[in-house]
C-alpha cells in the first residue's frame, strides 16, 4: 500500500511539470500585465517596475527562474498583494477554505446522504419527489443567487445571523456561507445516493438479507455500504471544487479564503499568484484522487493494490 502511494506521488511530478509549463505560457501570452491599470502608470515608473520584477527578461529565462524558485519552495511575491508572498497568501487563506469546505462537505454528505436514503426507501412517493425536486433545485440555482438571497432573508429580514464578514471564524459568521456552499453539493450527493440505493436495494445479496428476515436498519446499513462507493469517488473532485471554486461566496460574504485567487489571479494577471493557484489545484486534484483511490480500496474488497 505504502509503495503504491509513493509510486503514485512520484508519477505526479511529470504531470505537474507539464501543467505548470502550459499555464506559465498561457498567462504570459494573455494580453495585459499586472501593471496595466485603469489609471495608467508613468512610463519611467513602469520601466522600473518591469525591471524590478524581471519582466523585461526573455520569457524562457523567466520560466527557468520560476522553476528554479519553485524547486526551492519559493512561489515568488504576489503582484496584487505585494507585502505577501504567494506562499503566505495560501498559508493564510487555506485554513479558512479548508474549514468552510470541510463543513460544507460534511453537511453535504450527511444531510444529502440521509435525504438520498429517504428518497430511495420511498421511491415514487411524495417524500421522494420532494427530495428530488429540492436536490435538483440545489444544482440549478447559482450560488450568486442563493448568497444574496440568504443575506437578505437571514441577515436583514429575520436578522438571525450576520450578513457578512469573517470575524475570525466565529460560528455565526460561517453558517450562511457554509449553507450556500453546501447546497449544490448536498443536492449532488442526495441524487447519487438515491440512485445507488435504489439499485442496491434490488441487488441479490440485499434481497437475500431481506429474505433472511434481517431488520430494516441492518439492510439499509448493508445497502449503504455499496451505495456509498460512487459518492466516495465523487468526494475528491467535490473537495477540490469546494476549496478552489468558492470565489462567489467569498466575495459576497467577505471571507478570506483562497477561492478568490483562482479568479482574481487570472483577471489581475498576477502572474505569480496564477502559478500558485495552478500548483495548488494540481496538487489538490492529484492528492484527492489518491485519497479517493485508497478509500475506495478500503470500502470495496474487490479492489486490491499491489
Amino acid at each position, binding site marked *: 500500500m505504502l509503495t503504491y502511494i509513493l509510486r503514485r506521488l512520484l508519477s505526479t511530478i511529470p*504531470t*505537474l511539470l*507539464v*501543467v505548470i509549463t*502550459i*499555464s506559465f505560457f*498561457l*498567462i504570459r501570452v*494573455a*494580453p495585459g500585465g499586472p501593471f496595466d491599470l485603469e489609471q495608467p502608470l508613468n512610463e519611467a515608473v513602469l520601466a522600473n517596475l518591469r525591471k524590478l520584477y524581471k519582466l523585461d527578461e526573455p520569457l524562457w529565462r523567466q520560466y527557468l527562474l520560476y522553476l528554479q524558485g519553485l524547486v526551492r519552495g519559493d512561489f515568488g511575491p504576489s503582484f496584487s498583494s505585494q507585502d505577501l508572498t504567494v506562499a503566505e497568501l495560501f498559508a493564510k487563506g487555506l485554513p479558512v477554505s479548508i474549514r468552510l469546505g470541510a463543513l460544507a462537505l460534511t453537511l453535504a454528505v450527511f444531510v444529502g446522504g440521509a435525504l438520498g436514503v429517504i428518497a430511495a426507501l420511498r421511491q415514487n412517493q411524495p417524500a421522494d419527489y420532494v427530495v*428530488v425536486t429540492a436536490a*435538483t*433545485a440545489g*444544482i*440549478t*440555482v*447559482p450560488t*450568486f*443567487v442563493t448568497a*444574496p*438571497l440568504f443575506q*437578505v432573508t437571514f441577515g*436583514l429580514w429575520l436578522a438571525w445571523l450576520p450578513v457578512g464578514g469573517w470575524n475570525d471564524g466565529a460560528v455565526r459568521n460561517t453558517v450562511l456561507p457554509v449553507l450556500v456552499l453546501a447546497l449544490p453539493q448536498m443536492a449532488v450527493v442526495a*441524487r447519487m445516493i438515491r*440512485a445507488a440505493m435504489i*439499485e442496491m436495494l434490488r441487488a441479490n445479496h440485499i434481497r437475500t438479507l431481506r429474505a433472511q428476515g434481517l431488520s430494516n436498519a441492518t439492510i439499509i446499513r448493508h445497502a449503504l455500504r455499496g451505495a456509498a462507493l460512487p459518492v466516495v469517488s465523487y468526494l475528491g473532485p467535490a473537495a477540490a471544487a469546494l476549496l*478552489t*471554486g468558492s*470565489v*462567489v461566496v467569498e466575495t459576497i460574504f467577505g471571507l478570506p479564503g483562497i477561492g478568490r485567487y*483562482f*479568479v482574481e*489571479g*487570472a*483577471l489581475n494577471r498576477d502572474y505569480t499568484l*496564477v502559478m500558485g*493557484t*495552478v500548483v495548488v*489545484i*494540481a496538487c489538490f*486534484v*492529484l492528492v484527492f484522487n489518491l485519497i479517493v483511490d485508497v478509500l475506495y480500496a478500503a470500502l470495496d474488497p474487490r479492489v486490491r493494490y499491489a
Partner: protein
Amino acid sequence: MSDAILTSDIGRSLWDDAKLRLKRNKAAVASLFALTLVTLLSLFGPFITGHAFDKVYPEYTRVPASLSAFPLPEQIQPAIERIASRVRAKAEAIEINGGVVKVTLVGPRAVDERGLAFFERSDAFGKPTILAREDEGRKLIVSVPIEYRRFLFGTDANGRDLLTRTLIAGRVSLAIGLLAAGVGVMIGVIYGATSGYFGGRVDDVMMRIVDIIYALPFIFFVIMLVVFFGRNFVLMFIAVGAVEWLDMARIVRGQTLSLRQQEFVQAAEAMGVGHGGILRRHIIPNVLGPVVVYMTLLVPKVILLESFLSFLGLGVQEPMTSWGVLISDGARNIQGAAYMLVFPAIFLVTTLFALNFIGDGLRDALDPKDR
C-alpha cells in the same frame, strides 16, 4: 453486412424500449414538454412581444413588472408638460380622450413647430397633428396619439423590455449549452473510444493527457479562453466544449474497454473490418446510451458555467444577453428590483430542471439492468 443489420436491429429495439419507458416517466415527459415550451418561446416569442430586444425606451428605465400599459394615466400630463417646456411653451387645456391627447401649446413667441418632433421622440406618443394655429403661431392646438406599451417582466436599467430580453437570452443560453455540450461530447466520444479501443500504450498516453488536463485549474483555463476568444461567444463556447470532454472521454473509454471483449467486435475484427469501421459501426453506437445521458446533464452544466462567467462580468457581448447576464444583474438588485431576478431565474431554473429530469429519465430508460 449481416452483422450491421443485426446491430442496427438490436439498436432499434433498445431505443424503442427506452422510448416506451421514458414515456412512462411522468417527470421526464413533463420536463420534455417544459423544455420544448421554453425553446419555442425563446425561438418565436421575441417576434410577438411587440418589442425589439435591443430597443431602448429612455423614458421607461427600470419599470417594474406589471400588466398595466405605459404611459400610466397619471404620467401623461407631466410628459406633455415636459415636452411643452422643451419647445419653450406652456401646455394648456390638456384633454385625454381614448388614445388621443389634445393640447394647446402657448408660447411667449411663435411656437417652433420643429419642436413637435419631441412628441414622436418620446416613448409615450406618436406623430402629432396640428389642428389649429392661433395668435400668430403663439398658440398651437395639437392632437397627439398615445402609444401604449406593456412590459410584462418590466424593463432593465437601459429601458429595454425584459420579457423580450429573457426570451432572446434563452436562445443564447440554450445555443451555448447545446454547442458546448455537442463539441464536448463529440471530442469525448471519439477520444475515449479511440483510447479504449486501441488500449495498451496508446491508452496509457491518451489517458495521461486527460489526467494532465484534469489537473489544470478549470476556472483559470476558462478565463483565459474568455480573454482570447471573448469577442465571439460561439467560438468561446466551442472552446469551453473543448475542455468539457474529459468525463465523457473517461466514460466512453470504460465502455469501449468492455465492448472490445465482446464477441461481435472480435468477430468483426476476425472478418477483417478496419479499425475505423469497427469504431464507427460497433463501438460508438453501443456507447450512445450513456453519451446521451451525459449530454443532457452537460448542457445545464455549461449554462451554469456561462452564468458564473456573467457574474464575473465576462458574459456575452452587448446588445446580446443571456440568462446568466440577466440573473447576475438581478441578483445584485435582489432588494430594490426583485423582478429583474425572478423572471429570468424562472426560465433558467425551469430549463435546468427539465434537462436534469430528462437526463435522469433517460438514464433509467436506457439502463440495461432495469429491463
